[in-house]
């Protein structure tokens, strides 16, 4: 897919995800996942030191966070950092994950001292879905 097509698709996807999030609909999560995937595609064709490459890398991580897919956000952040991101971009990517970790630390301060945010979030979700006794199984 060429860059113009990807830009048009990501514009559509962001707008749709924002509208769904504004209406507090569950479908917002899958819409943000789609945004993250399109941003990742753009990151593959635009270098990290280019404005659009910078936006795409931050966008891929941010959209994964908004899709509640912290494992993906962490993996993308690490991948972009290893692929020649500038110091400023690396800091920005870390900050995006920190915002999510700060939110988690309010609810699970002790767990976050011993585990990665993605693991804490996964366990928190399991507890919410299946109740506290699952941890004993």
């Amino acid at each position: 897919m060429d860059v113009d097509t990807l830009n048009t698709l990501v514009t559509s996807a962001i707008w749709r995800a924002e509208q769904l999030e504004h209406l507090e609909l569950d479908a917002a999560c899958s819409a943000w996942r789609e945004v993250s995937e399109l941003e990742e595609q753009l990151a593959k064709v635009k270098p990290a030191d280019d404005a659009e490459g910078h936006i795409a890398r931050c966008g891929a991580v941010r959209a994964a966070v908004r899709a509640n897919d912290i494992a993906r956000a962490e993996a993308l952040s690490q991948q972009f950092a290893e692929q020649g991101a500038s110091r400023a971009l690396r800091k920005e990517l870390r900050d995006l994950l920190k915002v999510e970790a700060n939110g988690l630390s309010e609810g699970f301060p002790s767990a976050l001292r011993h585990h990665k945010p993605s693991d804490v979030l996964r366990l928190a979700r399991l507890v919410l879905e299946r109740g506290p006794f699952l941890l004993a199984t």
Partner: protein
Amino acid sequence: MSDSPALDLSRLCEMHPRLPGDLAAIMVIRAALGLQRNKHADGVNLHLIVENAISGCPLTWPIADLGLAKQHDNNRITEDGAEAIALAVAHNTKAWQVVRRCQSENKERGDWVLEHVSDGKRRRIALEVSGVDRGNISARVRQKLTQVAKSPIPVSDRCAAVVGFERPETSLKTVKKKTYGR
């Protein structure tokens, strides 16, 4: 007083070829609803403040059915409608074209990335857009300029556009480079 050619919102897709057609259509409908609920008729004079230059132009749009306004969120009528008008103004006054939309949250404060191509050189611009349904827009312009100045995106220029539906008016201003990142 109108001293420029008409700004026709129905041509938004021609102005910005990368703007998805369905998105442009709903933005224009919301602009029409925002203008019509403020009692404006097609061809009203749009007061323009671009950087420090004041001018005006007739604003035209495909008439919307106000009875359908209930199907749209009130705030989205103002915000999405403002985006349609701001992008049309950016094209007509600066020859800028949409590259893509950005996620508007936290640090990535530019709502849109636009480009200007001149003599083979491509310049990219971060544009933050906001709408005001009733009242003065000057405070919002200052607020948006401050926000977009903090954007970490490495673009050539950072701008803010605020659209007021009551008058109607649009202010499009560029952040002075020395204030970037403050």
